[in-house]
């Protein structure tokens, strides 16, 4: 075993940390309050290659390994979880399905544009199908050399900024896992509209929308991986996506941890700093230990993925551990800050709201536990 990052990974992490500190952190609060993200920030992230992190250089990407990718995610999340989720959705579930399952022609056609900052979104969830992804009812009817898509997709991250949508739909009249198909659809395709923008508790600078599909005609060559592959593609992308969300949570948790230590050193009560008081010391020890345990699991899941080995169980474990540890850390951070922690003047108030969704999206904690248990029971 070896628990060190390699030089390249450290360099990349430091570069992103530096970028996030200079370019993102100073505007994180205003982006949250105004529920916006400036175009020039998106442009700078594009120039730094953040939109093509995980796919090969020949398609304009950076082709970094999963561990490096995760370090980037953690650093971005430390500065702004909303900016982070835009990048992770774009990379993991937005572009990854193309990189993994697209034909050479599809890759050449779309990936360089994605790397150039044209944002991707992922449309699986529907009003009636969340954790039960196979319960989706949006339809794809074959019509000559096209498919015609109908239905409604909810909670689509990047939905209003996206240039591309990976969309899951099924053959009309079918149910279950089979007969689901995945498509890559461009913005502006007739019948695809942004219906409603969610007003969310956290991640406010990231857009989450409902996408309506009304007779959207998609050329057959934009089907990913062949007919019936839809759910497999989605679930494979989500396996990797979960590692991303684990590191997003770790980034928020780490920010909570660091802010708490900073505050505890300054704030005095009963004639001494909070840092000198055992109750607060205990809180700090627990935050640090929980986050470190989750980080080790996240690193291991990355390593397994990069080695080409099965990592579904480990990714699910990492997501549960990291998101739940980060939620506890955020709660503790608010508690350490006392009344100030409840005010928007302090960043921990935002962390507390932002972190909550990590236990919900890309598979709730409840789904992760079922995934883990099924794997364990099958292994035994």
């Amino acid at each position, binding site marked *: 075993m070896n*628990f060190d990052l390699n030089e390249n990974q450290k360099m990349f992490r430091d570069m992103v940390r530096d970028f996030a500190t200079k370019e993102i952190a100073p505007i994180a609060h205003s982006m949250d309050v105004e529920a916006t993200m400036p175009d020039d920030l998106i442009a700078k992230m594009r120039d730094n290659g953040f939109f093509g992190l995980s796919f090969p250089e020949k398609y304009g990407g950076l082709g970094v390994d999963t561990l490096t990718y995760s370090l980037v995610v953690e650093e971005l999340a430390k500065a702004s979880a909303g900016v982070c989720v835009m990048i992770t959705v774009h990379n993991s579930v937005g572009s990854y399905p193309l990189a993994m399952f697209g034909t050479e022609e599809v890759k050449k056609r779309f990936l360089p544009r994605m790397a150039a900052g044209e944002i991707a979104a992922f449309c699986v969830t529907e009003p009636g199908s969340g954790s039960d992804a196979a319960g989706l009812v949006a339809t794809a009817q074959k019509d000559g050399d096209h498919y015609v898509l109908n239905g409604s997709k909810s909670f689509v991250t990047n939905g209003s900024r996206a240039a591309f949508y990976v969309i899951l739909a099924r053959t009309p009249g079918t149910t279950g896992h089979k007969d689901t198909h995945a498509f890559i659809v461009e913005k502006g395709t007739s019948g695809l509209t942004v219906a409603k923008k969610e007003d969310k508790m956290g991640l406010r600078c990231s857009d989450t929308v409902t996408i309506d599909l009304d007779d959207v005609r998609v050329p057959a060559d934009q089907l990913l991986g062949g007919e019936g592959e839809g759910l497999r593609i989605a679930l494979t992308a989500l396996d990797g996506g979960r590692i991303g969300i684990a590191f997003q949570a770790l980034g928020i948790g780490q920010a909570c941890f660091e802010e708490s*230590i900073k505050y505890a050193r300054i704030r005095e009560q009963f004639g001494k700093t909070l840092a000198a008081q055992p109750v607060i010391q205990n809180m700090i020890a627990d935050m640090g230990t929980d986050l470190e345990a989750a980080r080790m699991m996240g*690193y291991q899941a990355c*390593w397994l993925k990069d080695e080409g080995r099965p990592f579904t169980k480990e990714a699910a*474990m990492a997501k549960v*551990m990291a998101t739940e540890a980060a939620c506890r850390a955020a709660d503790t951070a608010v508690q350490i800050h006392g009344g100030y922690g409840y005010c928007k003047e302090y960043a921990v108030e935002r962390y507390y709201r932002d972190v909550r969704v990590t236990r919900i999206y890309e598979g709730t904690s409840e789904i992760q536990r079922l995934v883990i*248990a099924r794997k364990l029971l099958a292994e035994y």
Partner: protein
Amino acid sequence: MQFEFNEQQRMIRDMARDFADREIVPIAAEIDEQEKFPAEVVKKMGELGFMGMNVPEQYGGAGLDTLSYILAMEEISRACASCGVIMSVNNSLVCWPLETYGNDEQKEQWLTPLAKGEKLGAYCLSEPGAGTDAAAQSTTAKKDGDGWIINGMKNFITNGANADILLVFAQADPELKYKGIMAFIVEKEAAGFSLIRKEHKMGLRASDTAQLAFDNVRVPDSQVLGPDGSGFKVAMSTLDGGRIGIAAQALGISGAAYEKALAYSKEREQFGRPICKFQAIQWKIADMATRLHAARLLTYRAAWAKDQGGRYSEESAMAKLFASEASHYITNEAVQIFGGNGYSKEYPVERHFRDAKITEIYEGTSEAQRMVISSMELKK
């Protein structure tokens, strides 16, 4: 990063598992019930090289890395936590300080028989009035010509009634507080040394925990370990490593409880189906496995960090804190999955549940670990 064991580590783990399954599992319940010290097992562990695993071969040890030792500890503790602690104390708390602070003659004379398993060691730090506050030593050492006279009482000494060689801490100069503490090598034959009593414990019942008296015990200068006044440093640095051993013991106990609960959940039927089909049980399994997995990674990392040569106090405190609390949680859930059977001595999980508790207490309570972790974090 790299998360695989090397050939040697795998071989040691398999050998330990095989030995534990054959020699220890069949007697574990009986020696627990009868509070019987497993002398025969200890002798065989010595022959296998398990009593001085990290000691260089020139001093009779196996010359292995810390991770190999940890893997063996985990396997032995999986069969019987009492055997685990006997092994851990000899390796971590007696052999290690002798190897690290001893001179050549001391290593020749004391370390070699301990590492070979021909003799058994004990670490005598705790006193009736000095537990977590280890510096509050009331045992005294007075200079007497070319030797020292030790007086006092030591409490909760693992292996105390069976040990041949004791590492004893005593205060030589109360004015200097912790800087006045010294470490001595004492033989059980020394005049004035006696066993006061053995504790009757909730768990680890096959391992003896003794109260020992030192009544004008004279030791020559040659049996002082380390420079005068370095005793507290010897004690604390020894515990840094010892904690990784206890973390591994907790992993073994957890692993045993988890594996049994998983197997039972597949066999036990209620409401017409195996209880593993119920989500309530699946969740327990997922949470038990996830915490165990995280605890393993933290423990293996601490072992790795120790072998890197730098400071590893925080890594080892985190591993011990997390692994011991995980073992409490996991063994409790295992009893729950077994239901009424889990409360009965007919099934081994009640022993695991009792054994797990001590890991949160000895070699530094959870509270002490949190103090270590927060002080390291607040110093950064």
